[in-house]
Structures are given as C-alpha cells and as structure tokens.
C-alpha cells in the first residue's frame, strides 16, 4: 500500500428516475421523483490497497462500483483516475485499466460461449498464450476447462473464470461486487485466498463490495460503510470493524452471526426509502441515540483521530452541545 492516489471521487451522485415520465406527467407538472442511489460520496482509493465497501442492499454499494468502472455515468460529481478527470471523452482510457467481477457468475458470463472465448473476449482477439496464463493463474486446468460452457462448471470454478476474464488484460483496478456471496464457505475461502494472491502478484487495487463483515475483515485494508447512499464511517478495517463508532456500524456488527456470541442485537426497523429519505441524518429513525439535531440537520463526515471519519452528531463538538 502506498500513498499514491489512484481514484479520487468528489461529491459523486447518481440519481435514477423513480418512474418513467409520460407526457401527462409533464403537462400536469407532477414532481420528478428520483431514487438517490449514491448521494454525495467523497473518497480516495490508494494504489495497491483493498477498499471494502460494506452496506445493506439498497445502500448504493453496487452503484458506486459501477460508477467507478464507467458502467454508469454520474448525475453529478467528479471522478479522477490516475490524475485524470474522467468524462465522456476519456472513458476509453478508464476502461482500459479497470475491470469488474459480479456476484453471480452464471448470469455475468455468456452461457453460449466457451470458457476460452469468454476469457479472450476482453483482448479483442484470441490469444491462446494469454488466455492459458490467465486461467492457470486462477488455478484452473486450461486443457480441462477451455472448451467447456459455464453451466458445466461448479460455482467456484465459474467465479474463477470470471476472475480470469478480469485479469487477462492486466488491469490496474478491479471492482469485486460480492464475488463470494453466492458460494459455499469452503469455496469462498478458496476464492478469497486467490484474490489476495493475485493482488500481491500483479499489484492490483481492489474495491471489494460485500455485506459480510467477516469477509471485509479478511480482504480489506480500509473500509467505508454505506447507508442509504451516504458514507457513514470510513477508516482502517480493524479500527472500524473492531470498534465501530457510528451507531449503524455498531448495529451492523451486532447483527452478524458469529461463533463468539449466540445473541444478535439488530437495529430495529427497515432500510429507508431512497426516493424520500428521512430528514437530517438518514439513520435517525432506527438510531438508539437519536437526538433532536439528528432529525433536522445532516451530520457531515468529519475526521476523528487520524484517518478515520464518521458522520454522526455524537462525535461533533456541535452535537455534544445539543445533547446536554
């Protein structure tokens, strides 16, 4: 891990239209409703690190991944990659350096292509040497898998093919969107070991999206916790997941079943609507420490001791005044 910044993201927003607008909606001037999937996210990704992104479904973690690899264009905000600002004109440059691995390998690989075709597709031409090397790097026997279709392989093997496809062009950065959540535990640890080895060998930078805190603890150097499209906590993995500061991170940690405790203490209530998120802090309806200010004003993401950041009024000087 170095201090060289690979990605810099400022005020990144992605709004989707909640409903398709017809002509009548325009005539009657019905308000335009947006789903605020990613709302004002700032972050930096350093070269060679693994940034874990943890959150529930609907927290915007997959959208953030898609924005970074250029699968979606941001509604607002700026992305710098290797010092260059990314816009429509230099998307090609970004796409040459980044790759993505998706959650379900059976749906992200073309079922009518053979493994060797799938892996050679990003190259634009069939290069047996490169394909063979990529497949062998991920621990598959080239002669055994090359002519097989994805359906003929097991879940763990197909996910390896998806990883081989991602590394065949030697990218700088890979977004891994829950690559192990469809796999059994024993296979999950094989894939996690492989990813850690690949990172060392090719000095890759990862963004690892997951809802599993145990997996994040293993693979990530730093984590960000997303809630309803916003970053609520950021910092070194051990700090954040061992001693969570934000009440949401605490609730998340106590919801995860582990072999240390038999009792789970989840936060109450449901994930908020992203069309009409709660006022002030988005977590306040579920938060056990909610104060008056939480309902009115949104807490900023402020630094607390070193490289740790948290967005909660409990940790701001202003908030402390309000508590008393």
């Amino acid at each position, binding site marked *: 891990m170095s201090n060289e910044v690979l990605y810099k993201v400022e005020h990144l927003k992605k709004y989707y239209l909640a409903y398709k607008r017809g002509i009548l909606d325009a005539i009657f001037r019905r308000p335009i409703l947006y789903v605020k999937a990613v709302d004002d996210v700032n972050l930096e990704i350093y070269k060679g690190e693994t940034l874990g992104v943890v959150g*529930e*479904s609907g927290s915007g973690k997959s959208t953030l991944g898609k924005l970074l690899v250029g699968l979606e264009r941001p509604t607002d905000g700026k992305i710098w990659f290797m010092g260059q600002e990314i816009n429509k004109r230099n998307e090609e440059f970004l796409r040459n350096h980044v790759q993505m691995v998706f959650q379900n390998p059976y749906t992200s690989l073309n079922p009518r292509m053979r493994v060797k075709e799938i892996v050679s597709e990003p190259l634009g031409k069939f290069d047996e040497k490169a394909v063979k090397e990529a497949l062998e790097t991920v621990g598959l026997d080239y002669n055994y898998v090359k002519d097989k279709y994805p359906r003929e392989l*097991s*879940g*763990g093997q197909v996910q390896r093919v998806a990883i081989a496809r991602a590394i065949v062009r030697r990218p700088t950065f890979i977004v891994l969107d829950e690559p192990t959540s469809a796999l*059994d*535990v*024993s*296979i*999950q*640890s*094989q894939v*996690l*070991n492989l990813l*850690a080895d690949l990172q060392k060998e090719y000095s890759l930078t990862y963004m690892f999206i997951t*809802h*599993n*805190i*145990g*997996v994040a*603890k*293993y*693979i990530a150097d730093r984590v960000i916790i997303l809630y309803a499209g916003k970053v609520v906590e950021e910092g070194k*993995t*051990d700090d954040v997941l061992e001693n969570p500061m934000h009440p949401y991170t605490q*609730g*998340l940690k*106590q*919801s*995860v*079943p*582990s*072999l240390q*405790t*038999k*009792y*789970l*203490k*989840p*936060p*109450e209530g*449901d*994930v908020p609507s992203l069309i009409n998120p709660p006022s002030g802090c988005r977590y306040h309806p579920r938060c056990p420490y909610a104060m008056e200010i939480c309902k009115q004003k949104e807490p900023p993401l402020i630094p607390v001791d070193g490289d740790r950041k948290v967005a909660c009024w409990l940790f701001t000087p202003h908030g402390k005044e309000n508590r008393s």
Partner: protein
Amino acid sequence: MVLLQIRNLNVYYNTLIGKVKILNDLNLDVDYGDIVGVVGESGSGKSTLGYAIAKILPPNASMTGEILFEGVNLLNLDEKEMQKYRGTQIFMVFQNALNSLNPVKKVGFQLEEALKIKYQKMGKKVSEDEIYKEVIDVFKDLRLPDPEVIYERYPHQLSGGQIQRVIIAMALLLRPKLLIADEPTSAIDVTLQAQVVNLFKQINQEAKISIIFITHDISLAYAMSNRILVLYAGRIMEEGNTEEIIKDPMHPYTQGLIASIPKVSKSSGKLYSIPGLPPSFYTLPAGCKFHPRCPKVMPICKEKEPQEVHVNNRRVRCWLYE
C-alpha cells in the same frame, strides 16, 4: 418428549441414469421446543430432508423408513390424510418467501384463508370479525408497522423483511407443532436476518413451536439452534448439542467448516479452506464420503464407510472415533 422421530430414512431420486440415493439411513429425534440447525454445503441433501418431512418431494422421489410425527408414521399416510398435517401441524418456510404467497391476493386475505382452513379442520365456527382481529393482533405482535395498511397490501408491495414476517405471522396464526425453515434468511440483509432470527427464537419460546432450521451458514445455526446436525453427501456426519459442537467439533468436516469462516485479516496468513469440491451423488467415493477432502484421512477411510458412533452424547461418523 419426542415430537418427531425419523428412523432409517432413505430418499431416492429416479433419474435417467437410474435410482440415486440422496439421504442415507438418517435418524433424528426432535423434541418439543427444540431448535435443530441443519448445516451443510449446497448439494448435501439438507433441503431434501425438509421436503421429505413435509412430504413435498418432487414426483420422481421415493422414500423408505419411518417419519413418526407424534407417533404417526407420515410415510403411510395418503395425500388426503397428509393434508391434515401440512400447514396446521407441520409448517414450512421457504428461502424465497415472496414465491410462497399468491401474488394476486391481498396479504390479509391469504392469512385469513389460512386461519379459516385451520378452524374448518377443527370444526369450529368463528366470525369474520374475530378472524380479522386475530390477524391484526399477530401483526402487532410481530411489530409490523401499520397493521391495517399491511393487511390491504399485495405481496409485491412489501419489502423482503416484511414478507418474511408475514409468513411468520401465518405460522403464528396456525400454531403448528413443527416449523421447517429452509434457508429463510439467505435472500435478505444481515440486519433483517438478525431480526428474523430473533423472531424465530421468540415464537419458539412463546408458542412452543419446534423448529428445524436449514442453513449453509454454521454461525447462523449457532445463533439459532440448541442442536446442530451436520450433513454431508446425504449422511449425518455429526450431531449433538450446539454449544459442544461449536466449541469442540469432532468430525474433520465440521472442523473444516468452522475454520473456513473468515475471522482474521489477510496479513496474518491464508484462510483455511477445505480442498476440493463436494461430491456429486452420481459418483460418490468409496468408503467415507468425505475422505478425498479430509486432512486426517487414513487407509481404512478409503475402503469402508464408518458407522455413526455415540461419543459423549454426540453422534459422529468418522473412523477416528471407532
């Protein structure tokens, strides 16, 4: 007190290549008030076990052995008699709860329907108003927000966690003696999963419903159950008290499952992983079914299959303990 006794249960599937044995000589007792966690990788036969107890296996399946539910052998019952048990005595919760509700009927209507059938079976006459009140009361017990509003909703208008709670509401209305939950939380988020797990524990304590909880996540089974059953290739590998199994797993497969859970960071070394893949039921290895992946394999493991042995109030199928 024993609620369910499974004796020498074998389940076969007829396929094009012939008869395949899925569950092999399975014995299990479930007491009143028990929560049994069934753990295994995909393809270990854990869902088949759930389906076999409720007798909803696909038509190409056949069973031998005994499933005694309060002394009645379910395998001898015909479809009509079995109907009396399903729902009101044995209730099943599936992985995707949305698929187990009718998409074109309101949630409230479906719960009322279930309740009416229960009263019909009991031969009791209950007025519409009382049924409505009972449904709303259960919604309140489960802390569903605005019960009257939820009552009027269609399944697709509810979130994943709410749907799962509606299904649990149905279970609470019917008060079955046995609830089989087949991966009920794998389609929902961790915080909701924890809420649902706590709900299951609550209905187990308050309504005295025994639960068979099927999952692939051994830490979830630990949080949920008081007994654990580890299945591999359709065989019980280890069975016993949850606390004891987690603290001191005896079978190498259970040890492997526990060691595979990521706990540390990548800087402190590699994660343990069980080498290889679970076997296919068409080509099961000879001897112990786990021997090709086992770190403690001995010559005898490759030749003869171990029998279940009782070691301090636990059952293990491994040559290490014979």
